[in-house]
């Protein structure tokens, strides 16, 4: 029997992630999603295929997810990021009952039961509870985004950030710098502020242990620690938090193919041609 390969494409607001798997992950690629890159999910897929030493015709099924899932014209199916994150976490961290995903443009809480999402909350209205908050404030402070988490842990006396708006918070931190407040104390305060907002949102779900943290926010040690302090217990982290959605998408593709085979339902697939999205041209 011919081997089956499944691809998951997670087109997020900041990063595009592609995973190719059969029984295990064969290749994964994480690339940026910018205004130009947004239509180039096909390029990221090509990189993943090269890493997996496969061609696109070898892929049995492609599922796209994420904010820009509709911009993946070569996907066989689009599935919401809630379902994909749930499936990914259920596979990687089966003991998790709650997922907190902190993305570049939104954040969400997902409640899991028997490996599937049964409830969720989302913040897509306000940047203050998303990765964007740290991006904007890091820029204001002249600090690299990837250094923010580490620096926050060096705080001696974290400050309170009063502004609930990202733009005003960015101004507030510059003012605090001018007042002579140590940079690390300000950064710790920013992490505290974003953790508080996320915790408040996810609190709408009954948070059940264990809690898995995914998305770019999970790669920020300062944010992980700030959220753990709010929750009162440690969180679980997948090996690569950015890939959870793409892994879930690939796994859901596998589930779809299996179900179709078991029930003898014909599988609807797109022509195996890697094209870029035309929405932006």
């Amino acid at each position, binding site marked *: 029997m011919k081997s089956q390969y499944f691809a998951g494409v997670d087109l997020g607001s900041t990063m595009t992630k592609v995973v190719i798997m059969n029984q295990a992950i064969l290749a994964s690629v994480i690339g940026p999603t910018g205004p130009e890159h947004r239509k180039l999910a096909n390029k990221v897929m090509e990189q993943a295929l090269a890493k997996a030493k496969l061609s696109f015709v070898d892929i049995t099924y492609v599922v796209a997810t994420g904010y820009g899932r509709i911009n993946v014209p070569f996907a066989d199916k689009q599935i*919401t990021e809630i379902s994909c994150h749930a499936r990914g976490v259920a596979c990687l961290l089966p003991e998790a009952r709650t997922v907190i995903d902190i993305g570049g443009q939104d954040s969400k809480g997902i409640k899991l039961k028997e490996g599937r999402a049964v409830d969720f909350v*989302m913040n*897509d209205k306000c940047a203050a509870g998303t990765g964007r908050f740290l991006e904007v404030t890091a820029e204001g402070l002249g600090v690299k985004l990837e250094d923010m988490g580490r620096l926050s842990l060096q705080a001696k006396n974290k400050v309170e950030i009063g502004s609930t708006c990202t733009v005003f918070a960015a101004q507030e931190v510059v003012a605090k710098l001018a007042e002579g407040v140590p940079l690390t104390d300000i950064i710790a305060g920013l992490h505290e502020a974003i953790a508080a907002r996320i915790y408040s949102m996810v609190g709408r779900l*009954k948070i059940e242990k264990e809690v898995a943290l995914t998305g770019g926010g999970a790669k920020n040690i300062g944010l992980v620690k700030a959220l753990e302090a709010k929750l009162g217990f440690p969180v679980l982290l997948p090996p690569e938090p950015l890939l959870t959605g793409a892994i879930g998408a690939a796994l859901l593709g596998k589930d779809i193919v299996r179900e179709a085979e078991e029930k003898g339902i014909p599988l609807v697939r797109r022509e195996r041609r890697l094209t870029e999205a035309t929405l932006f041209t």
Partner: protein
Amino acid sequence: MTQEKKPEKRRTATEAAAKIGPMQKANIQGVAQAKAEGKKVAYAFIACAYDEIIRAMDIVPMWTEAYAGICGAKRDAQRFLERAGAENFSRSLCTYALCGLGFDAWREELGEMPPDAPWGGQVKPDVMLGSGQLLCDPRNKWYQAAQHYMPDVPVYDVGLPWPPYEDDYDYREVQDYYVKYIVEELKGLVQFLEKHTGSKMDWARLSELVDLTDRTWNLIWETYELRRAVPSPMGTGDAMNTMVPIVFMMATQQAYDFFKELNEELKRKIANKEGEIPDEKYRLIWGGGLPAWFALTDFNYFNSKGAVFPVETTYRVVEAIYNFDIDLSKITDPLEHIAWRWVKFWTYWYDKARKRPGSHPSVERLIQYIEDYKIDGIVMHEAFSCRSWHVGLIWQLNLLKKVYKDIPSLILESDIVDISSYNEADTRARIDAFIDTLEAVKSR
């Protein structure tokens, strides 16, 4: 002037709901006509129990919340909101009030209707009848603020309380006091209207209208109960139309006749097994919150995913009179009758709540609907500018899940009028995710 995208028209499931647009337009234009004919016009709020009183006195209501909602639905509210902003009203106030105040400020400054005012505009009133009750605090202050622009128009602020819910006492111990209080408030309203409009109360007509209202309440309740059918013949999208005769036309024969027609239409659809959509997969309750009037096509989007709303709590502001624990027909004084109906409506779910430890009337109502209408999931809308109806929705949801069962839920976020709070792509992404969770729960 802010240019807003012309709204896509929502598809209705029932013929009756499709008639509402022209009916409401005629209502609004009818106020201007009545004013031109010398009739007295009152600014009025919905669900204030004074429908029969003003109609018996031949005073024409200008429903200011309705007009703001119409501006929102026509995506023509921003210019009035901006006007209110320029008057330094906070953006965090009720956007119905902001829209109305912005409109009034502009109309009074011009001495005529603002250009291209939707459906001819909101007519300057002769009196303004505020009433916050326990429900909505802006309604106590809105008309007082409107007096900044219309100092010659008097305001009467009617207080219509009801006994608060406590699980360790029976509200019947104090209900008589509330009824007496409300009757006095309504008497004061009649005196105020007689003094400031010159109209005299026609007490015989008031009694007739009280009786008509009772019959209309029963008919509405019976009609909406028909939506229990599987497939359900009518959804909340349509109910956001059919709320017009409920809250803006109560105590009129036209409202009664409308529901008679809708009742017959729903029975016909049920007999033909004709649902709101051909393939009903998920049955949802609109469990709280006023709708985003500019985004009613979201209901069609739910439909496209196989989801229907056989029931909602919003604007279902009636119960069957014959289900009350008193016989209202024996209360012949019309003001007392109105007061008892008011108290019995707001306390309707109290007894049920007391039977379930830790529950609350608002949650019991949801539970009853979930059971009766075979509901799979609950959708609520948090309108950022409406504290009154929206504070506590999350609490209700959490309590429901605690005392009843864990049911998939979706919270939509935007506003009633302010379209800048709305993002169609994000809203629909949430709906997609919610449909996924419904499917996951169903297939477990």
